[in-house]
């Protein structure tokens, strides 16, 4: 058995790495392009559905709506149903607008809002002047409790044999030390009176502030409500048209595309629109399967080979492995030239992909023949037989039957140049 040395394997692995890395970068580029293709097709798919809706319901004209309702067997799309729904919505919105307009708060909204602004500004100023004094009291330790228990009043329930009595006493004294000089008072009761005066005044201001804010919000709410209802009333026809189209599309989307094509068969513009959807669906299917077979799979294989070469280049240079020998057959199999098979695969993928992506003659599809989308899109220049539908088509001879049928039709058409020649003779 002939053999090769470890150093020969290392040299071959190094040489192969370069072409593997290049092929990997080509596959990475194809993968990126595939992702872009899918993004574009998904957008086109959404637009195609929207277009189908526009074709089925181009306007809200009664004959148009009745025709769509009959075509789709969808009574809610009929002119009478749509008119009734629009009438009810118009009445609801107009009622809402009328109710708002009758409200005195809305009628005088400018005056009321101005009044609110003036009062709120005044209140904010007064609150701003009073709040710090009240906050100063509330910042004292146990102040809340002293006020709540009525300390400094006859109602204070403290008992001199309980600890809480002394705690209140102590903190009332501390409060007097802290704020007594400021208010020029000597006892807690007088200090408490100042607090009660200020906090009650502050509370009254805050209540008034809340009332004016509520009034301001009520006016703003009415204005928003009026604006919203008016906008909706103005856009009622547009919204109804959009909803009718969505209803039609929703109805067809619940069917398979073959069933949808059958359903709209009496209306040629919609037939073209559904064929476009079928073609886009086929494009997405084909491109995804081509990507899996011609890009993702070889990419994984090449990444494995690159990793193996890197491992061997490192390992076979170590003293332990440097003297190993390998079978020449294994060597030849591992390092054979793959460029031509890669080139063929790339060519097949790029050719099929570019034709599929560029295809836009969706109306050529004829569901009464056996011709599949693949054949139409690629003109049979590539046969991706790993796709079951494609394999079945080319294996069954359907393509040849189709070609024969086309040829026989062509034979029946009299060639004018031939006729002319016969006439001369």
């Amino acid at each position, binding site marked *: 058995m002939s053999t090769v040395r470890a150093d020969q394997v290392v040299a071959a692995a190094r040489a192969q790495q370069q072409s593997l890395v290049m092929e990997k970068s080509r596959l990475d580029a194809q993968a990126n392009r595939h992702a872009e293709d899918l993004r574009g097709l998904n957008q086109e798919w959404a637009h195609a559905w929207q277009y189908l809706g526009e074709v089925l319901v181009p306007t809200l004209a009664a004959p148009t709506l009745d025709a769509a309702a009959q075509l789709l067997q969808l009574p809610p799309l009929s002119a009478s149903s749509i008119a009734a729904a629009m009438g009810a919505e118009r009445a609801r919105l107009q009622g809402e607008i009328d109710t708002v307009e009758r409200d005195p708060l809305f009628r005088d909204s400018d005056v009321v809002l101005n009044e609110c602004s003036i009062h709120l500004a005044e209140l904010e100023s007064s609150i701003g002047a009073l709040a710090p004094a009240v906050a100063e009291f509330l910042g004292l330790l146990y102040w809340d409790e002293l006020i709540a228990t009525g300390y400094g009043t006859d109602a204070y329930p403290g*008992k*001199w*044999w*309980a*600890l*809480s009595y*002394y*705690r209140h*006493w*102590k903190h009332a004294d501390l409060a007097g030390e802290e704020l007594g000089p400021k208010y020029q008072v000597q006892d807690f009761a007088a200090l408490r009176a100042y607090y009660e005066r200020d906090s009650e005044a502050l509370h009254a201001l805050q209540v008034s502030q809340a009332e004016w804010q509520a009034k301001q919000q009520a006016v703003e709410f009415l204005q928003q409500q009026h604006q919203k209802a008016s906008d909706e009333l103005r856009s009622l026809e547009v919204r109804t048209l959009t909803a009718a189209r969505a209803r039609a599309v929703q109805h067809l989307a619940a069917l398979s595309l073959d069933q949808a094509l059958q359903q709209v068969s009496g209306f040629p513009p919609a037939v073209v629109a559904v064929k476009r959807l079928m073609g886009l669906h086929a494009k997405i299917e084909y491109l995804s399967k081509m990507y899996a077979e011609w890009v993702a799979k070889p990419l994984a294989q090449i990444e494995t080979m690159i990793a193996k070469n890197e491992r061997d280049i490192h390992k076979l240079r170590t003293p332990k492995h440097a003297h190993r020998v390998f079978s020449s057959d294994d060597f030849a199999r591992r390092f054979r030239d793959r460029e031509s098979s890669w080139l063929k695969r790339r060519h097949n993928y790029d050719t099929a992909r570019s034709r599929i992506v560029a295809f836009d003659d969706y109306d050529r599809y004829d569901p009464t023949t056996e011709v599949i989308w693949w054949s139409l899109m690629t003109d049979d220049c590539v046969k991706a037989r790993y796709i079951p539908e494609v394999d079945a088509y080319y294996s069954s001879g359907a393509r040849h039957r189709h070609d024969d049928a086309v040829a026989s039709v062509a034979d029946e058409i009299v060639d004018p140049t031939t006729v002319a020649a016969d006439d001369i003779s």
Partner: protein
Amino acid sequence: MLDEDEGCAVLLRVFVERGYRPVRDVRFAEGDVTFDIDGWDAEARVGFEYMTRHAGDHDDLTQEELGVLEARMRRGELFVFIVDETDIADAGELEWAAHRFLDEVQRRRATPEVSS
């Protein structure tokens, strides 16, 4: 918050400083009032009770019994400093309050402090 042992230690020290001789954890039984009092000087009839939820003091000394004790304190027959554990901020505050309580006892008896 101080626990019962820490709180009672503070109270015992203050009461002793002020000349009382409270005995820790004795049975108080007079009339309809029966409970284990945390510190009691039977001769001076002055003491303290540290009320904690944990020790079940609120069950031992009921509201009715407390009402009887309070009435007797108003009449000057005895004096018990009632401390609820939730009212205490720290030992210093408890000590300050205990002194003020004993001042009040002294004022109400209108007698000089018991000599140590």
